């Protein structure tokens, strides 16, 4: 359900770009999705197929997902570490004064359209 809502936002934004550029068709949409964005990529592509095919300019349009690794920064030792493996606690110094640097992105990176 969450992913379907996200798909509706993607469709809205892509349709806006299509309108501004007078596009008749979009071949694929490339997304940057952070590892800890709470989005399940498989659900997102399933929801995409269902919803995109209902839109004339998005029929058959592929959704490509780039996963952005989650990285956390530690304020105490200044180092960075992979969030998924270590969570909130810095594996270098044990501090909990840490914050997420990357990994929550839900961004439309680009769209690919016929060149005519």
């Amino acid at each position: 359900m969450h992913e379907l809502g996200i798909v509706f936002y993607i469709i809205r934004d892509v349709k806006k770009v299509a309108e501004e550029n007078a596009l008749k068709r979009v071949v694929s949409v490339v997304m940057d999705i952070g590892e800890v964005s709470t989005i399940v990529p498989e659900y997102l592509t399933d929801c995409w197929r269902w919803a995109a095919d209902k839109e004339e300019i998005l029929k058959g349009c592929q959704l490509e997902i780039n996963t952005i690794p989650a990285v956390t920064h530690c304020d105490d030792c200044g180092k960075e570490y992979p969030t998924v493996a270590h969570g909130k606690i810095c594996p270098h110094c044990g501090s909990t004064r840490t914050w997420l640097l990357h990994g929550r992105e839900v961004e439309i990176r680009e769209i690919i359209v016929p060149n005519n």
Partner: protein
Amino acid sequence: MCNHGIHIMEEVKVIEIKKSIFEDNDRDADNLRADLKKRGVYLLNLMSAPGSGKTTTLIHTINRLKDKIRISVMEADIDSDVDAIKIKEATGVESIQLHTGGMCHLDAEMTRQGLDNVSIDNTDLVILENVGNLVCPAEFDTGAVRNAMILSVPEGHDKPLKYPLMFSVCDVVVINKIDVMPYFDFDLDKCKEYIHMRNPKATVIPVCAKTGEGIDQFAEWLLNEVRNWQNK
């Protein structure tokens, strides 16, 4: 896959977008907050898991505040209007039901549309009871002045670890059903510690909506918030 092959054969071009899908919603939410500020209306976004006691907590809180400030409630659910009716019957304040049409959260535009159905010029406080869900509502700014959430004892004290985003966006966390704490392995101190790991500034208020314990404190927090918003 077949289609994909065809696409590679034809000439294509790339249009770079680089846009977060939350960007438009964040802007709508800021606009809504500015509009509410002008009108002197405070909007509270109340979130929680299903069954945490949001509606019961609201009823007791509203009954303590309704003689001091004018209150309206917007109940958001995927379907049904049982909560809106319950609030109206138990408190007498204006209460409307919003249906999200299958969506698991409300965004700023849906909130604005809901507010169009509330007597906005005759109210000081609008409480939005968001869809029962700890994931999606945290992602979408509704345009509320503050976010509040209710965590109930049976859900466990480790919820802030499992749903970090929800706890990091909430300004106040109400811990409900504290009367049943002896029957669950719920550690209130640990819970507070975990909440503050996510958001050091969060106010934590333990309550029991059934007996009314702690509700005064939540009502007072809310009243101060509304008065500050209207006076600043």
